């Protein structure tokens, strides 16, 4: 049974550090409290981003959980160069890509057997989707890469270089995706962009 005072002290120390300090503590001391604080700090951004990418709350939360478990396993590989959140988003984005590949394989298999596809995760309007309709309409008009890049840029505030690192795209490609997405939004929804 852990002493409550010691536990509180441990928690308050965990809460006060920067991300990098918490990572160092979690790696060197195998400190679960430090990692717990990292999860609490970043769960909202990771889950929010995955919800926008998958457009399915339940799937997004599963992927977010997988992301944090993987983060714990790979924590020692975080070099400290760049922000922790962008390293974490890279893992989350890989989880998203993996789940999309699985979903594609699944639908291909279902198609081969000539059965009607009934369980596609990434479909707008599925149960659990409750986005602001404006944003949903805006995002639905974009390609998947454009959507990912826009969510990371405008919702998470990642820089172009960070987005490039997360998605594995060159910065030029990131910029052109943003540019194209902006143009498409401007064409389709002049009232959203104000760019008439």
């Amino acid at each position, binding site marked *: 049974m852990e002493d409550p005072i010691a536990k509180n002290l441990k928690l308050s120390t965990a809460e006060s550090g920067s991300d990098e300090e918490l990572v160092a503590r979690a790696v060197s001391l195998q400190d679960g409290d430090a990692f717990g604080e990292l999860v609490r700090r970043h769960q909202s951004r990771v889950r929010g981003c995955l919800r926008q990418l998958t457009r399915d709350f339940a799937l997004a939360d599963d992927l977010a959980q997988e992301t944090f478990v993987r983060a714990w396993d790979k924590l020692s590989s975080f070099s400290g160069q760049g922000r922790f959140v962008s390293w974490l988003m890279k893992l989350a984005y890989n989880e998203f890509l993996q789940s999309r590949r699985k979903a594609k394989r699944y639908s291909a298999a279902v198609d081969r057997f000539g059965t009607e596809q009934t369980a596609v995760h990434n479909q707008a309007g599925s149960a659990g989707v409750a986005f602001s309709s*404006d944003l949903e309409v805006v995002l639905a008009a974009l390609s998947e890469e454009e959507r990912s890049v826009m969510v990371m840029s405008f919702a998470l505030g990642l820089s172009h270089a960070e987005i490039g690192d997360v998605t594995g795209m060159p910065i030029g490609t990131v910029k052109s995706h943003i540019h194209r997405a902006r143009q498409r939004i401007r064409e389709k929804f002049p009232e*959203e*962009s104000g760019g008439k």
Partner: protein
Amino acid sequence: MTGIHNQQDDERLRGLFREAMPPVADDGFSDRVLRRIGQRKRIRRAVLYLAGGLGLAIGARPATDLLMAAGDWMTASLGQSAVLAVDRFEPMIVVVVLGLLSPFLVSLLED
């Protein structure tokens, strides 16, 4: 002009995303993640100890043979007294050496 347009677009888009993506409440998510990590740690440790034990069982015989071969070599080079010493303690030496090494090997694998 395009720059101004882009800046206005960016501001509007940021506003749109802010509105549509309010902070997600934890609702026990972090605890679930930590519980899962704890479970994985326990399972991994159990598997490692099991594998270590199995390795110990499989490795004990070849290690004994190796020691006997070493005994033969010592007979040839050092004489009968060294062999008698090895023969007397041979199984115990194997168990002690492997027993001492196994926690080290398991923790190495765990890392």
